[in-house]
């Protein structure tokens, strides 16, 4: 992240726009390469020296503020050695010697007299003793390398643009994200990241488009807790959506403004590119599920369950006439603890619109627990994958129950 003085943005008519750099800005890519090369050649040098060398490169660049921003992002990713063992003990020795010397001085001793006596007692030049005294302070620690993989120049420039957008978000309380016709796997990834960031969202759908009002759990209350860091972290995943717009009320100085971002901006997600996949069985069911009454939707429609959980079901059935929706979440043999948690959450807050598809391998050997699960009105048991026939039967019963109430 960039500190406040390194942020660059313009506010015009209440709209805040980060001063993004072009991704293919040759001068900047060249500076980024130079900074990365400096890091490589500075291994073993002290933190203060590395910072100074990088700072000089930044100062010489035609756009020093941008360059200082790049330096900050580089420094954030560097790892320095831990203090050498024994530094603290050696220091202790010096202090106790100095304390003893001070006590024995005559009352009219000058500071020069004290220094001379000290040097004599220590047996080393005072200049050396002074230089070594705090050699283990953070600024004196030696550079080991990168925390993780070394970035490329392009990655560094991309991170800079992202950080320019994240900075103002630190002062935000919520953001609104609109995604236009996103691929389902991309939405799923965004929703997973939302949960990871401990944020909540009100999700609205407008045809193929999605709108998410994202904020922290306590944002609706008169609490001082800000979720800026979490919102800024959430922004990392947004570019995954490909076609999107984002708005947030921010207060980077003392005046409020509306931060607006979109896929037109040069923002790249630093998260791994993999999106996951829709299982073959789900695709197969989707292709073969032909029913006059129900249609099948693979859209990951999130549901808030229990007191504070978010569930992203695998599929949703929609009754063609009544538009009643029934979501299906699948639990495979490796989901035992997740199933236990979901059952507890359904007890806390019943949700008749959610079916749990449970692999029979998860059935307990304990007869009572087994019978309870088998008789659970929201559980559909299956081997490998629930059949279309079984699902149709269960959906038919649910619609009949709804119609009779």
């Amino acid at each position, binding site marked *: 992240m960039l500190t406040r003085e390194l942020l660059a943005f313009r506010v015009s008519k209440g709209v805040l726009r980060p001063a993004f750099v072009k991704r293919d800005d040759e001068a900047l890519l060249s500076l980024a390469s130079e900074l990365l090369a400096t890091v490589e050649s500075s291994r073993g040098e002290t933190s203060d020296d590395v910072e100074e060398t990088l700072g000089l490169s930044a100062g010489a660049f035609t756009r020093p503020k941008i360059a200082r921003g790049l330096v900050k992002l580089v420094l954030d990713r560097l790892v320095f050695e831990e203090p050498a063992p024994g530094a603290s003990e050696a220091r202790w020795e010096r*202090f106790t010697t100095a304390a003893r010397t*001070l006590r024995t001085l005559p009352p009219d001793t000058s500071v020069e007299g004290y220094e001379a006596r000290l040097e004599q007692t220590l047996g080393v030049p005072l200049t050396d003793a*002074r230089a070594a005294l705090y050699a283990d302070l953070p600024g004196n620690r030696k550079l080991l390398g990168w925390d993780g993989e070394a970035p490329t120049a392009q990655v560094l420039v991309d991170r800079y643009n992202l950080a320019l957008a994240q900075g103002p978000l630190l002062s935000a309380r919520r953001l609104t994200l609109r995604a236009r016709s996103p691929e389902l796997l991309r939405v799923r990834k965004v929703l997973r990241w939302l949960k990871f960031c401990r944020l909540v969202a009100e999700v609205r759908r407008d045809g193929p488009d999605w709108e998410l009002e994202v904020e922290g759990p306590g944002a609706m209350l008169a*609490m*001082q807790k800000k979720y800026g860091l979490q919102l800024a972290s959430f922004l990392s995943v947004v570019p995954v959506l490909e076609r999107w717009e984002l708005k947030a009320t921010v207060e980077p100085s003392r005046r409020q403004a509306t931060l607006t971002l979109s896929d037109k901006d040069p923002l790249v997600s630093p998260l791994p590119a993999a999106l996951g996949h829709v299982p073959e069985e789900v695709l197969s069911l989707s292709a073969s599920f032909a029913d006059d009454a129900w249609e099948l939707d693979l859209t990951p429609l999130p549901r*808030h369950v229990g007191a*504070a959980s978010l569930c992203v079901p695998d599929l949703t059935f929609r009754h063609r006439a009544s538009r009643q929706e029934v979501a299906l979440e699948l639990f495979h043999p490796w989901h035992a603890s997740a199933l236990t948690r979901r059952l507890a959450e359904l007890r*806390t807050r019943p949700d008749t619109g959610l079916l749990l598809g449970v692999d029979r391998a998860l059935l307990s050997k304990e007869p009572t627990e087994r019978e309870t699960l088998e008789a659970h009105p929201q559980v559909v048991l299956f081997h490998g994958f629930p059949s279309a026939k079984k699902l149709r039967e269960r959906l038919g019963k649910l619609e009949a129950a709804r119609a009779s109430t």
Partner: protein
Amino acid sequence: MDGSCELHFDCGTLVAPTLPDDARLLALFQKDGRTGVYRAPAWHYRDVVLRLRELGVGYDDRAKRFEPLEVALTVPIQPFPHQSAALEAWTKAGGRGLVELPTGAGKTLLAVLAIAHVKRPTLVVVPTLDLMTQWQGVLARHFSVPVGMLGGGVNDRQSLTVTTYDSAAMQTEFHGNRFGLLVCDECHHLPAPSYRFIAEGSLAPYRLGLTATLERTDGGERVCEELLGPRVHRTDIRELQGEYLAPYEVKQVAVPLTADEKARYDEARALYLNFVRKLGVRLSAPDGWARFLAQSQRSDEGRAAYRAYREQRRIALTSSGKQEVLWRILLAHREDRVLVFTDDNETVYTLARRLLLPALTHHTPVPERKALLAAFSSGELPVLLTSRVLNEGVDVPEARVGVVLSGSGSVREHVQRLGRILRKRPGKRALLYEVCSAQTAESGISERRRQHDAYQEEP
């Protein structure tokens, strides 16, 4: 209990999927349109539970993750009268409230008594790492249960845990449901926007705020009262001086700059102030300093003005005359324990290297801090140099002499620094030197910070 209502803790908030139809209860929550549950700040937990009990409604409490704790004092404590009075007032207030006692009056022991009284897992929040280690030591001495710490690279949560405001602000959403008693030491820090959540996001039904100086210029004490409870006890510094606090004397030493220093000081200060005037910035305005900083980075002239600001400040804070005066004080008090306060770490380390004296700053690792304070107590290391980390609360009863070499204009900072040397010891008379560069802006700063009762009375 399998009740008709469930309570959950979610990231510093209290969540109920359903609630009985009761106006007072519903008024404590808000309906969360995003997730469909009822949500309240976690600190409403006490009122919610009391109301549910009053209504006779069964409830399943899945929010709190603590139970009564068997904590007995290892050795009985004989409290001072003011401590007994404070504990009684706090207990009468239902185990919520603020206690204002002067530094050195035994606030830590009061908290020990409160923990022993309510017998609940307790989180103690303190401003600095030094106070964290000190509180940990005191609690460990008085209770036979392990006492954990969170902060400064230590991550050991126990039923009794001490943490810093900074760490607590980040951790409350995760552990705000694990403690029944929240103790905020130096609670005048709590109203800061980034710290309020520590009390807002905690379920703790019992709360104790401790401070020597509750009043804030921004009226923030009302936030303390809302989140921790009303002020239930106050004892003034002059009520305890002599009997429970050491008598003290404050000596001001004005040190002239050398001719060369004065010339360099005047030149740098003129450059800095001319730029400020040209900008039309009033430095006394709330955003004056921020505006100066921002403008100073936008031109060569601005950057030169900023360098000049630092230079004139450095000259005033570390003049050769000041260093000479410090040396004379150290020599005169070489049989005493002396705390030297400066305004910044740079000065601390400069002096530490020059005289080979130990420095205590935020860079000092926790184990070394503990060792330094212990050696200072024992007399093995009779001098400690520090910037601001020892300003508050740290218990160094052996310290008799304080030297304020530089500091801000804050009255609170100055009072707290004085408090470091006021711990009562038989025959002890505390002495605070305030060394100030004459004919510089530092004289004005000195005047501002001495506006407290403690300085208005001749000893």
